[in-house]
């Protein structure tokens, strides 16, 4: 019997290594797997490359990981926010590397990795600083920039419900990068608010099929009650 559910956050992230690349779902706090990130901090892995839309705000999530000095590089579209002081300080001190990627190119490059594509030609960014030095091509009268897939060793994702095969549904706009990151990482680890029996999730409505998920862990019930 296959059961991808593990019983603790600690167990879920046990095989992280120093130097790992990690995709982290979320757009701001919506969909950010804060509990899994806390487990990464406790695990102690360092020299990490984080791939996410933002670079953390406030004191939790990616901000906490940066504060704990575990992050070598961030690949994201929007690092600067009202409360991104932990990223800002390390960036200004030259202690963290930033690869700035337009949001749609970030999504497309993650999708390219998940779909096994070698590269993509995207119109976004053509003629701008963010395409400097990159190969371009005119296709049917339009200009495109060659961009490469973004792969990761791990994806940390927050979903609403999952079953022991790893099928997932999400909650509202907390879905954001979850489904595409789940496809792009070697190991996908998901925190869910509730675990349901196999067959409970409507097959017509499953957003991420279990093939893209390696491990699930349920967040503590009081947290789940707030999220539901």
């Amino acid at each position, binding site marked *: 019997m296959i059961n991808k559910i593990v019983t603790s956050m600690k167990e879920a992230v046990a095989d992280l290594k120093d130097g790992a690349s990690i995709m982290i779902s979320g757009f701001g*706090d919506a969909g950010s797997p804060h509990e899994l990130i806390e487990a990464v901090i406790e695990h102690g892995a360092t020299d990490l490359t984080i791939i996410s839309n933002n670079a953390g705000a406030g004191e939790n999530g990616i901000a906490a990981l940066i504060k704990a000095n575990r992050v070598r590089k961030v690949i994201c579209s*929007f690092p600067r926010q009202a409360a991104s002081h932990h990223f800002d300080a390390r*960036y200004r001190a030259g202690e963290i590397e930033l690869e700035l990627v337009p*949001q749609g190119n970030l999504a497309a490059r993650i999708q390219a990795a998940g779909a096994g594509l070698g590269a993509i030609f995207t119109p976004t960014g053509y003629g701008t600083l963010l395409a400097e030095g990159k190969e371009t091509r005119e296709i049917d009268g339009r200009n495109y920039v060659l961009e490469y897939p973004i792969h990761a060793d791990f994806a940390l994702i927050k979903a609403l419900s999952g079953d022991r095969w790893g099928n997932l549904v999400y*909650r*509202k706009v907390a879905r954001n*990068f979850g489904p595409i990151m789940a496809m792009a990482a070697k190991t996908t680890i998901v925190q869910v608010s509730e675990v349901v029996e196999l067959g409970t999730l409507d097959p017509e409505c499953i957003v991420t099929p279990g093939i893209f998920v390696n491990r699930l862990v349920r967040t503590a019930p009081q947290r789940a009650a707030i999220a539901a």
Partner: protein
Amino acid sequence: MQRLNREAMAARVAKDIPEGAYVNLGIGLPTMVANFLPKEKDVFLQSENGLLGMGPAPADEDVDWDLINAGKQPVTLLAGGAYFHHGDSFAMMRGGHIDICVLGAFQVSVRGDLANWHTGAPDAIPAVGGAMDLAIGAKQVFVMMDLLTKTGESKLVETCTYPLTGLACVSRVYTDLAVFEVGPNGARVIEMVEGLTLDGLRELTMVPLEAA
């Protein structure tokens, strides 16, 4: 000469958004356009973080932090609205499915080049978000901005000096003093506030302008 205030600018943009349009409103000033769309007409608001059919801000007791807009403010979903992941959201832009997006800008050139993501200041932490995808993806890009900077320089320019967001992507520029059409044939003035003349506008902007 009476400048349009922010509400009047938002109302002016809203007037040019037809029923049935799929629209993305950028962060900041463009978000205000939603307040002036006629309630009886169906206009579909898209938010890049994964929703279509976005409604107004909720009452305090109904705030749900899993239902926010691109500016990370709480919003609501209208009946018939839908959620989707980031790949689909940006396919809506890049794939040409969004009819109109409304963006703010530092500068727009008379040919429609847009600069709105970076001042180019060496100590600035760059952040781009979805600006470049929206600029080149939407069928029509409307820019909403004050015509002049605080120090009186025109933000409608012959050539952008700030780093570009997209090339030849803007079609209309809505400002506090005039509305312009921009593109391959240069800038044309669609309308001006009362008391302003075409020559007066030329003097303010220092760019070639024709009447529409």
